[in-house]
């Protein structure tokens, strides 16, 4: 960083401090997290709580009778039950045409499970010993699986759950790596959408990173859909407009309360969403932002809280929930690891028709005494309109329903 002379340095610092305070004020006015945020309370007295490290899923799923299900809180008329337990490291959820629920994993499981909707719902391992087996999608009879290195396809999977065999490899040139290298998949109009996160907390990404891409189902024709996306693990298409909405995880180690994670929407080709130069639409990065302007980047539709770890999201198109939820997005806020005070919840958001969105908490109760009881990851709306939610921390899947069904 260039050295500044003392008097101009203090002017710069004063401006920076003011803009940070204004940004913080605007951010909090727009979107306070559900659990009491850290800025409202003093730090926990136990100094072990200030030792911030990525919180991994416990290697043993929470026993069914110890799950936090009974403690979750929802709006009136909604209820939640445990749909499946003992699902170690449950991450993404997708469903086959014959009803099989597929569940991926991330750091701990190294597996993909299949769970039949009826019966005891014990997870059956159909893919094993596969690192970063995280991005899954079901399309025309096939299970698609994206690791950090490859995209694979298991044809006719629902008839071969006992013996899926070797998958076809659609693409094997994903950059791999550790950081932000786990995938999320959606297929729409015969195109496969996936993302490659930045290979770092904060760095200048090359053309293969910090982007959302799509490809033909045979692995050809890769196109960039969005740039400047630090790490997205959740995206879905607005049924009204066809636009792709995505969550994006913001940089670490700026402060406890900034920047917010973002909810963004792709509205045209070639958009850049700011990373690493501009965070949350209005904070120029202290290292990469020199000579840049936040006005040059696409603004977030909404802010989702600092270090919220916003992950999976889905537009609700079922018929069970009240009308106000049709066309709304459910968003999983997995909760921070690099923040003294933890919070996690399921949020619901409505596009406002003007490129923005209104976000509210929907299901809370994942954090007690600053300890995670569970952490939500992804969603699956069933045919009856109820909604499944995965929880990798507790190793469980919950079912949210409305109206006593």
């Amino acid at each position, binding site marked *: 960083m260039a050295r500044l002379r003392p008097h101009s340095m203090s002017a710069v610092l004063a401006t920076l401090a003011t803009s940070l305070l204004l940004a913080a004020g605007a951010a909090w006015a727009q979107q306070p997290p559900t659990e009491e945020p850290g800025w409202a309370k003093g730090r926990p007295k136990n100094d*072990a709580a200030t*030792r*911030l*490290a*990525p919180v991994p899923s*416990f290697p*043993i799923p929470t026993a069914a009778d110890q799950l936090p299900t009974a403690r979750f809180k929802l709006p009136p008329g909604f209820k939640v039950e445990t749909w499946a337990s003992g699902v170690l490291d449950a991450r993404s959820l997708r469903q086959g045409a014959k009803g099989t629920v597929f569940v991926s994993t991330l*750091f701990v499981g*190294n597996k993909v499970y299949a769970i039949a909707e009826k019966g005891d719902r014990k997870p059956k391992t159909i893919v094993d010993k596969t690192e970063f087996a995280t991005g899954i999608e079901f399309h025309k009879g096939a299970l698609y699986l994206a690791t950090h290195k490859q995209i694979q396809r298991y044809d006719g999977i629902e008839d071969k759950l006992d013996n899926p065999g070797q998958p076809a490899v659609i693409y094997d040139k994903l950059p791999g790596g550790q950081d932000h290298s786990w995938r999320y998949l959606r297929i729409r109009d015969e195109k496969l959408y996936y993302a490659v996160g930045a290979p770092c*907390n904060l760095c200048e990404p090359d053309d293969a990173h910090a982007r959302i891409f799509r490809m033909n189902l045979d692995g050809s024709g890769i196109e960039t859909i969005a740039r400047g996306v630090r790490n997205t693990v959740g995206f879905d298409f607005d049924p009204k407009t066809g636009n792709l909405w995505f969550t994006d995880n913001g940089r670490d180690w700026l402060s406890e309360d900034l920047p917010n994670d973002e909810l963004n929407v792709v509205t045209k080709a070639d958009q850049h969403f700011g990373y690493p130069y501009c965070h949350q639409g209005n904070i120029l990065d202290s290292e990469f932002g020199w000579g840049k302007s936040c006005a040059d980047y696409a603004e977030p539709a909404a802010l989702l809280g600092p270090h919220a770890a916003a992950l999976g999201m889905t537009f609700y198109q079922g018929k069970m929930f009240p009308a106000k939820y049709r066309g709304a997005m459910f968003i999983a806020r997995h909760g921070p690891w690099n923040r003294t005070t933890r919070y996690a919840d399921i949020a619901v958001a409505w596009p406002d028709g003007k490129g923005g969105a209104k976000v509210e908490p929907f299901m809370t109760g994942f954090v007690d005494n600053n300890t995670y009881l569970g952490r939500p990851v992804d969603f699956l709306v069933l045919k009856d309109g109820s909604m499944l939610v995965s929880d990798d921390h507790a190793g469980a899947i919950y079912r949210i329903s409305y109206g006593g069904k």
Partner: protein
Amino acid sequence: MTRHMAMAATVAMLWALALPAFAQATKGAQPKAAPAAASSAKVYAERYAALCAACHGADGRSEMQGVPSLAGQHSFYAITQLFLFREGRRANEAMTAVARTMKDEDLRGFSDFIATLPALAPAAAAAPPDAARMARGQALAQENRCVICHGADLSGGQQVPRIAHQREEYLALTLQEFRTGKRPGYTQAMGEAVGRMAPEDLDTLAYYVARLPTAPPRPGGK
């Protein structure tokens, strides 16, 4: 690898010797936890003494090269490593052989017992530590944010291991293996933390952490 084979053979023999004792002990230990917690703790104390102590030390202080001390280690951290050994993801023949025989309740039982072993003061050194090297180590620990996860006294907590006063050669080996990716973490954190550090700096860190000056040790955490 001769040393690993020797260790594996030792462990196998100890495991065989421990089995009769274990068979007797489990007659009393019921699977349902709460009222049997005290007897469960006793069971795992006995199993540790029979199975683990020969290498890791009866009090958790290892005197063996390549074998870490366990004294004062946290149960969440210990269970993640036993899990990685059981899955065969952390490459160590002796430990994988041991962990493969463990059911989920054994992972919990051993980890919870390890957490009762109080942290020990460092063994008395032959000579006072090199002040310049210690200063450099302290600077590295700050710059590379070691203290953010492991704490100012490097005692860790929950899923973050206590590293203060660990065996220097074990720390050095571990850091180098995280740097090269040979050692898998239960999370990405260590690969990220040390992946771009210079090897000589990692050796300095190992020197510093093994000799970390501290107040009297705290007991092992949760």
